């Protein structure tokens, strides 16, 4: 007894002292999240996860290489705790949940008044519905009666509300509903849903190229549920911070309030909730479906690639991104200047995407550093080519290669990467698009004395965003409209000295509907500038096609604009396992277009990986509108002023690259959200009397 006690006492003390001392002596700093994560793993060091021990697994989780559910022993609680530390969702088995797509409820007018019927099914059979809206909920609660688990009830607005905690995904409600309003879907199905002609959609949601459920997130914002709002956006758009800053918001063009007065400032509301998340200090968990074990290579880490990778990852595939530039982001990092989208914001947003467990390899160029052959050998089963459009068009005029001439995207990109560019004192930027505006505004911030925009049509035809044009006007850019450059003239040292242009006048409308500019004979004019930047559009750089020695590469068809030939409904290229998205599929377009097509290509890739036929979405609403939802007048509105975007005064802008546009303050955001009519197909909340007027 005594020797045993002494022995154990001794050995315990020695071990304890050695360990506690060495933990002090050999202390090394490491990411504190590793220790936090490790504390929540089972710590059995069993190796069941495939990593070398719990600390290695914790490190892998923190570095985004493993899922929070990596531990094979850990229970759900542990997994959730880890997920919380990492700001991603637990990603356990994907369970289907009931999901109600109609939030119109009793807002739509009744079409039939027959008080005796209290069953949706009977109502649908007898009258084909109760309300004027052909797709909306009838609100008689067949689904509620069908639910065995008490998970459904008719909410205050007359449509069924699902309690996710109680729902088991049995599907009884879906069977009971005669209108396909309530659907039992998994997360993956919801993520891969595209707008269809029979959906209950507001005009803005139909217009948004990313198909974000706009009324839903504005409603959530209004209720103060900012996190839920961000989650709603992330169902369709992985880059709310970037889009909230740079999107030209086509959605606002179709806003019903915009028919009577100024449209709701949808994009600013998106930016408000996105900024709220970023400034809150913690990431909102992003749900991912369980791993499928399939591997996809995404080439190009721009908005299209990121979007495709994000959605593929969320539906459970393993995704690796290959990027030629030193960092991810593509055109939104290298083409959009800091004052519009700060790199810090972009870094934060991209990190959140990578944290889902997406690996990124930067500084590797497709066709040079790796090719189709090496991808196939590494086990990738599908490839997304989202290489963007980085090749500037040439003006095709004499003197274009002189010292002092630049090309738009090339100039912005080189500047973004920190390259020292020899600047002149004055500059002319040729072109009327967003890149041209980006160039002039950047040049102003670099201290140039005089910057011109030379455009061959007038201000009305400029394709750049209106806000951008206004901002550049405020900042003192001089516009030279109706001018077509004819040559660049050098001084004695071979440097740019003047730009010669021909004056134009507007003639008959051309195919694009804009009036064609016609040159005026003998109107050559000289403009004294030391720099000329041509920003007249870009096309994809398809040099990889010749560089990659893989024999199948010859089968990849390109269009005459150098974009990758594809079926726009499925984005599949001429080689079946290659898909495309973004600018390399369509030619230069909006960021939000790229995001939408990234998700669309993710859907096609998913189908392809599952071995199902890659077919277009049935009854797709892509680029179309539901005719009955487009109104010409919207009665019942009180005019209220649209929230004005806060911005930094012009005199403070020009000496740095500081972000110009600011986020709405909370009260202004709420006020703006109140302006949303929460439209659906037919119904909307008029400013007067809802829901009291309808309840009677």
């Amino acid at each position: 007894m005594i020797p045993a006690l002494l022995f154990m006492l001794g050995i315990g003390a020695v071990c304890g002292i050695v360990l506690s001392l060495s933990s002090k002596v050999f202390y090394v700093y490491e990411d504190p999240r590793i220790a936090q994560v490790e504390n929540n793993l089972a710590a059995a060091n069993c190796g069941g996860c495939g990593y070398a021990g719990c600390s290695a697994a914790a490190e892998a989780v923190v570095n985004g290489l493993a899922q929070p559910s990596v531990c094979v022993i850990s229970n759900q609680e542990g997994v959730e705790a880890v997920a919380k530390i990492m700001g991603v969702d637990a990603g356990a088995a994907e369970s289907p949940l009931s999901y109600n797509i109609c939030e119109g409820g009793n807002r739509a007018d009744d079409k039939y008044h027959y008080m005796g019927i209290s069953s949706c099914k009977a109502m649908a059979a007898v009258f084909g519905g109760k309300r004027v809206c052909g797709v909306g909920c009838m609100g008689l609660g067949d689904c509620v009666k069908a639910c065995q688990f008490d998970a459904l009830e008719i909410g205050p607005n007359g449509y069924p509300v699902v309690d996710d905690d109680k729902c088991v995904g049995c599907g009884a409600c879906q069977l009971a509903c005669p209108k396909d309003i309530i659907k039992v879907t998994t997360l993956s199905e919801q993520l891969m849903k595209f707008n269809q002609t029979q959906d209950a959609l507001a005009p803005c949601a139909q217009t948004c190229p990313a198909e974000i459920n706009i009324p839903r997130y504005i409603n959530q914002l209004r209720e103060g549920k900012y996190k839920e709002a961000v989650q709603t956006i992330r169902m369709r758009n992985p880059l709310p911070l970037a889009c909230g800053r740079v999107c030209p918001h086509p959605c606002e063009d179709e806003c019903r309030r915009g028919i009577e007065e100024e449209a709701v400032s949808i994009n600013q509301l998106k930016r408000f909730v996105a900024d709220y998340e970023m400034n809150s200090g913690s990431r909102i968990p992003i749900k991912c479906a369980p791993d499928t074990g399939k591997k996809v290579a995404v080439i190009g880490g721009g908005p299209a690639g990121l979007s495709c990778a994000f959605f593929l990852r969320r539906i459970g595939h393993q995704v690796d991104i290959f990027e030629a530039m030193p960092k991810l982001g593509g055109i939104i990092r290298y083409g959009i200047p800091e004052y519009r989208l700060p790199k810090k914001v972009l870094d934060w947003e991209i990190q959140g995407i990578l944290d889902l467990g997406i690996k990124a390899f930067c500084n590797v160029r497709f066709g040079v550093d790796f090719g189709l052959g090496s991808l196939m050998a590494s086990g990738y089963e599908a490839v997304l080519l989202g290489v963007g459009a980085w090749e500037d068009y040439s003006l095709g005029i004499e003197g274009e290669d002189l010292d002092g001439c630049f090309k738009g995207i090339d100039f912005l990109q080189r500047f973004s990467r920190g390259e020292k560019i020899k600047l002149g004192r004055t500059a002319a930027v040729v072109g009327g698009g967003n890149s041209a505006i980006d160039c002039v505004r950047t040049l102003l911030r670099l201290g140039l004395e005089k910057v011109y925009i030379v455009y061959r049509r007038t201000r009305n035809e400029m394709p750049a965003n209106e806000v951008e044009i206004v901002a550049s006007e405020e900042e003192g850019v001089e516009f030279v409209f109706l001018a077509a450059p004819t040559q660049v003239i050098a001084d004695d040292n071979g440097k740019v000295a003047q730009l010669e242009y021909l004056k134009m006048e507007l003639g008959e409308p051309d195919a694009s509907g804009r009036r064609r500019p016609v040159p005026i004979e003998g109107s050559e004019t000289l403009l004294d500038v030391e720099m000329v930047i041509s920003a007249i559009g870009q096309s994809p750089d398809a040099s990889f096609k010749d560089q990659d020695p893989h024999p199948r590469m010859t089968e990849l068809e390109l269009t005459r604009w150098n974009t990758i030939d594809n079926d726009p409904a499925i984005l599949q290229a001429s080689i079946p396992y290659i898909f495309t998205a973004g600018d390399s599929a369509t030619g230069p377009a909006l960021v939000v277009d790229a995001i939408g097509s990234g998700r669309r290509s993710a859907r096609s890739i998913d189908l392809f990986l599952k071995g199902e036929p890659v077919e277009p979405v049935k009854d797709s609403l892509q680029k179309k509108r539901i005719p009955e939802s487009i109104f010409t007048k919207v009665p019942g509105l009180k005019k209220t002023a649209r929230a004005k975007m806060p911005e930094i005064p012009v005199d403070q802008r020009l000496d740095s690259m500081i972000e110009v546009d600011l986020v709405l303050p909370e009260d202004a955001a709420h006020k703006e959200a109140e302006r949303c009519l929460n439209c659906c197909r037919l119904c909307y909340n008029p400013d007067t009397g809802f829901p009291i007027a309808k309840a009677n």
Partner: protein
Amino acid sequence: MGDLFVLAISCIFINNILLAQFLGCCPFLGTSKKMETAVGMAMAVVFVLVMAGTLTWMVDTYLLKALDVEYLRTVSFILVIASLVQFVEMFLKKSIPGLYAGLGIFLPLITTNCAVMGVCLININEEYTFVQAVVSATAYAIGFGLALVLFASIRERVNLARVPKPLQDTSIGLVTAGIIALTFMSFKGMV
């Protein structure tokens, strides 16, 4: 010397710790998915096993047997091994980061590796001398590494094959291990 050689051969091949004695199976399956991991793990096991084998032999001979408390062997061995591993890990991390990067991350996995504890116990049960104990620990560790690396290289190939769904992953891994074990059985006639 000849005896030690025979001992080493029998520990590496005939009584291979993984395939004949079933010790250390968890990391065998866990760390064999990638070749890199397998090599790192194998190195770390050699490293720790030799140290642990030596240390526990000394604890047993000079403390447990001397005090006549041999029944405390299990408790004291595991405590010594766990502390040793943790100590070595902290030491490497601070002092030799290069080595730590290579095999340090595998160290925690070894605490609960029954191969380490098992070999230490075998050394005592067999009443090996100090030299024999060191040789057997080294040889068992090499045997572990050999089996692990062999297995990992086969597994990397198997991953590329079309395996029926229910058989995938661990299941086919175990069957593969069985076939390797079958080949190792043929070493039995060697000594």
